[in-house]
């Protein structure tokens, strides 16, 4: 699974620029396990890892959903707590950082699947 992370105004613009990051597979698969059966509680995190590839493997966090996304991350890390590995924590903290920066610049974070 390779999901490139782009920070852009639109998907068309994202297609023309280099990604800012790439989701690491170990953290990604741990996220998938952590929210299994809890997609209703974590709809935005679920959109990140519901499908590994294809058009529905893509996800977007626009500026107006940034707060909700950050809240879900806090909630998940609070729920998973001490059992969350460094891989999962590291990935979510990094993603949160990109989402905060993007919100400040009024940009959307796009996750682009293979």
């Amino acid at each position: 699974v390779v999901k490139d992370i782009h920070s852009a105004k639109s998907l068309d613009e994202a297609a023309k620029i280099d990604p800012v990051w790439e989701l690491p597979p170990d953290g990604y698969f741990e996220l998938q396990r952590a929210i299994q059966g809890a997609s209703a509680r974590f709809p935005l995190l679920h959109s990140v890892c519901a499908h590994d590839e294809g058009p529905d493997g893509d996800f977007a966090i626009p500026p107006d959903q940034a707060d909700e996304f950050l809240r879900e991350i806090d909630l998940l890390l609070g729920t998973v707590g001490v059992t969350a590995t460094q891989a999962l924590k590291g990935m979510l903290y990094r993603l949160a950082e990109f989402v905060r920066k993007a919100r400040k610049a009024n940009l959307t974070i796009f996750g682009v699947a293979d």
Partner: protein
Amino acid sequence: VNREAVRPIAKLAKKFINAADSAGDVAKSANRVAKNADATKAAAKADGVVPAKGPPPQYTAKSHEHVWPRHHDPSQWTKKSKFAPGEGGQKFADEVYNHPNVVVKRQQDGRWQYVVDDMGRFTGSRSNYPSRSGTLITGPDGVVITQYPGVPKGWKP
């Protein structure tokens, strides 16, 4: 010893012994089945035999709409792996699906993942690193979700 009095007890004891033997046989049989299953799995792995597959791939217009910009067009999504000229489409999907060394996995969302580590030629590149591998992902109905040169990140043969 009053033999008449002991006879029912002896009968009961015999029943218990028979029951224990039967249970032992069942356990032995279960062990045998489990051993056979393990042996079959091991043989399948050793022979590179694919244990199960989804339906044959169908490369549709929708598949193309997703795959073309990401894994063919060099002017878009420049960090994605790109097919070499002439690679891709239905032919590539069929080749990966039917390859004798294909490694098949069912994904958590029900999709099928087919990976061939070495297709015997250069299939494309990622960030200018050439690749000889091929990956195909199909839905449960066989429709191609995506395909690309290279293996999924984190994939191990």
